[in-house]
């Protein structure tokens, strides 16, 4: 019950923070939908001129837009760096807000510290879920706009295989986003700083990006322990390949999936448990 109170209070407070909600949850879906629609309109305007000069027999017959497949594709692309960076705004606000506004003292007296931390994590998970659902809707909206602008028909192929791929990819993307945002939790608890909660995960993310580029120099191979434990982004990409199947999946070494899951779990539970342990002993002298 006290955990539910903590989640409810954190979520409610986040909802009142319209600036954070806009930038972390609404902005990316809105801008991606807007940019996609604008780019389709631009291409269409250029195409109209080019099409008129073509002989009738060479004019292309456009295929239908498969909204089911577009959902699957969108689910696989949810955890991109842009989405991570903007969701981080909301997460950092939740995780570091009570240090910034010196409001720990108002809530610590009536709940346990683990509950308060889990309440914050719960609120961020809900925010992430809403953000990703909006992104999926925006992606669908962009495909609908594409169909309408190019005069194409629509189909919705969402059979058992596609539904399974969609479910697994959406879940994997969600886990990857939450894993990344938990770095913000640890940074907030240790530094008590909103800026650190915002920038430390970004710095780690950029560092891991360059480490991934340099990994051949260290002799690391796709799917080996070093890569999977040090680079959660690579672990995520490897699991994505396995879910999508095909030729690429066949090249993944045996056992790599478990190593990738272990890597993602390490980077999810590690920061969370460290933050929890740190907060349990923390003197909230000022806050």
């Amino acid at each position, binding site marked *: 019950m*006290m955990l539910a109170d903590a989640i409810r209070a954190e979520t409610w407070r986040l909802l009142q923070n319209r600036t954070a909600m806009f930038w972390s949850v609404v902005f990316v879906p809105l801008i991606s939908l807007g940019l996609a629609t604008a780019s389709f309109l631009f291409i269409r305007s250029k195409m109209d001129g080019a099409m008129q000069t073509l002989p009738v027999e060479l004019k292309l017959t456009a295929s239908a837009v498969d909204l089911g497949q577009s959902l699957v594709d969108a689910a696989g692309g949810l955890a991109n760096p842009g989405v991570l960076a903007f969701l981080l705004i909301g997460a950092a606000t939740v995780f570091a807000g009570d240090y910034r506004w010196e409001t720990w*003292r108002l809530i610590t007296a009536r709940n346990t510290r683990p509950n308060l931390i889990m309440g914050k994590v719960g609120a961020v998970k809900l925010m992430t879920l809403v953000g990703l659902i909006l992104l999926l809707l925006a992606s669908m909206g962009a495909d609908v706009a594409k169909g309408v602008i190019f005069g194409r028909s629509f189909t919705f192929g969402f059979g058992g295989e596609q539904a399974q791929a969609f479910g697994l990819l959406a879940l994997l993307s969600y886990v990857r986003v939450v894993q990344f945002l938990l770095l913000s939790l640890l940074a907030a608890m240790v530094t008590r700083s909103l800026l650190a909660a915002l920038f430390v995960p970004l710095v780690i993310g950029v560092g891991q990006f360059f480490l991934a580029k340099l990994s051949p120099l260290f002799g690391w191979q796709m799917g080996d322990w070093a890569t999977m434990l040090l680079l959660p982004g690579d672990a995520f990409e490897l699991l994505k390949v396995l879910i999508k199947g095909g030729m690429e999946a066949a090249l993944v070494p045996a056992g790599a999936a478990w190593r990738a899951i272990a890597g993602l779990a390490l980077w999810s539970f590690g920061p969370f448990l460290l933050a929890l342990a740190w907060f349990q002993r923390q003197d909230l002298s000022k806050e």
Partner: protein
Amino acid sequence: MTSVIETSGLTKTYGPVRALDSLSLSIPRGGVYGVLGPNGAGKSTLFRILLGLIRPTAGEVRVMGQHTGDPAVTRRMGSMIETPRYPPYLTARQALRWLALAHGMGAEAETDRWLDRVGLSEAADRKVRGFSVGMMQRLGVAAALMTRPDLVILDEPTSGMDPPGIQEMRALIRSLADDDGVTIILASHQLLEVQRVCDRVAILNRGKLAAEGKVSDLTASGERLRLAATPLAKVMAVLGERGSVQDDAVMAAVPRAEAPALLRALIEQGVDIDEARWVGADLESVFMTETSSVEGGRP
């Protein structure tokens, strides 16, 4: 007299600084209890320990018979430590609503009633980022009381308030203690207010307990015999270190029982006594005496 708070040998150090130094204190249940002391005396540190925000370095503390930090106990407490702050994007009503949710309360929190009780009804829908210090204090008091606690800790509850606001706050505090049976512990630098509203006080100095007791007892112990007499030099010669000249009179620090003998001695010395009357000490003079008596004085 049952105690709501018991501390024994309570010590808190921040590096080389001893914020609390073996503090042993017993605060009775019911009434209004003042914790006084100059800046750095350890008041806020004591409050933070009572609320489980920080852990003591050594010693024991029990709140309502339980260890601090136990949510079962802290859920029965309300507090306002220093000037409270709230997320600036919230209105006063939203701030209380947020805290009510955090405390597992629904409509029973009666947020509007508490906003009204602290005089913030008209500002209920204003963002707290525009609030003055006094308004933040009022909101902090409303937040502390909203949960219907048995024990309320208020750190400088009237700081930044105008005189009518101070008067209203004093009435509210007294009414909570007298009518609702809430135990209130407050710290304030406004000693006249403390004298008016508190039943008992503890005076801390450099983390130690300098004095403790009923306000009436503490002020009575500081009473002086005011002697308007001539020549003052002869009076001072008789009193020695027990006397001090103030305006045109001598203030004699003597027990009431010794007063007749003193007056006889002065008359025998040829002193003309125009007036002799007892002057009660106020809390301020007791405070000044107690906080300047420890070596090193104010930190």
